[in-house]
């Protein structure tokens, strides 16, 4: 079945430092989604990537889909305390209406 690995599991940064989380799949993907879950909250959709090599930006967040469409990254420039939370990737390689979530990367930001 679909396997997706997300690294690192935890990341502690000083406010102002950059942060990157990676999502790697064992098979090629039709699309990948990224979600953010604040502490005590629920996952909230950030973005969806569908094309090989695609790069999308949302303010300080940069999302990239690998050329081989098997991996993706989320990069945050100059982290702020509002960035704390767990970032999940969700992949779908089956077109069967099912997303498999990565295990998440939990980001803490020290002011």
């Amino acid at each position, binding site marked *: 079945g679909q396997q997706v690995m997300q690294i690192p599991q935890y990341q502690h940064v000083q406010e102002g430092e950059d942060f990157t989380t990676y999502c790697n799949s064992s098979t090629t993907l*039709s*699309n990948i*989604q990224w*979600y953010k*879950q604040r502490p005590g*909250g*629920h*996952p*909230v*959709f950030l973005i*969806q990537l*569908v094309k090989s090599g695609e790069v999308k930006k949302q303010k300080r967040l940069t999302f990239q889909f690998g050329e081989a469409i098997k991996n993706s990254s989320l990069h945050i420039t100059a982290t702020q305390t509002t960035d704390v939370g*767990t970032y*999940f990737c*969700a992949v*779908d390689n089956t*077109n*069967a*209406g*099912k*997303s*498999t*979530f990565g*295990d*998440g990367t*939990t980001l803490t930001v020290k002011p």
Partner: protein
Amino acid sequence: DTAVSQTPKYLVTQMGNDKSIKCEQNLGHDTMYWYKQDSKKFLKIMFSYNNKELIINETVPNRFSPKSPDKAHLNLHINSLELGDSAVYFCASSQGAGGSIVSEQFFGPGTRLTVL
């Protein structure tokens, strides 16, 4: 207006009891899901329904029985609760049909279930 709502928000119960969690979405979406998030925050899909029809049933014990009376509602009934069922259960919905790419999912606020 809340897009995806769940009740109750918290549920504390004894082992062996039966309980239900309700979910409603007012987004007009075709597909609804139940996810389980454990203490390590791992998010695992349990069920997916499209227009009231079950399309995904992961390896979930048959003590868990989802019911979709209409496409705006997906309830989860759990029989004979066990300690290991303690988790946060999220309902979600998305547009699109089974057999296609999953589009953006909207999650409910979650139900924290504690089994004593």
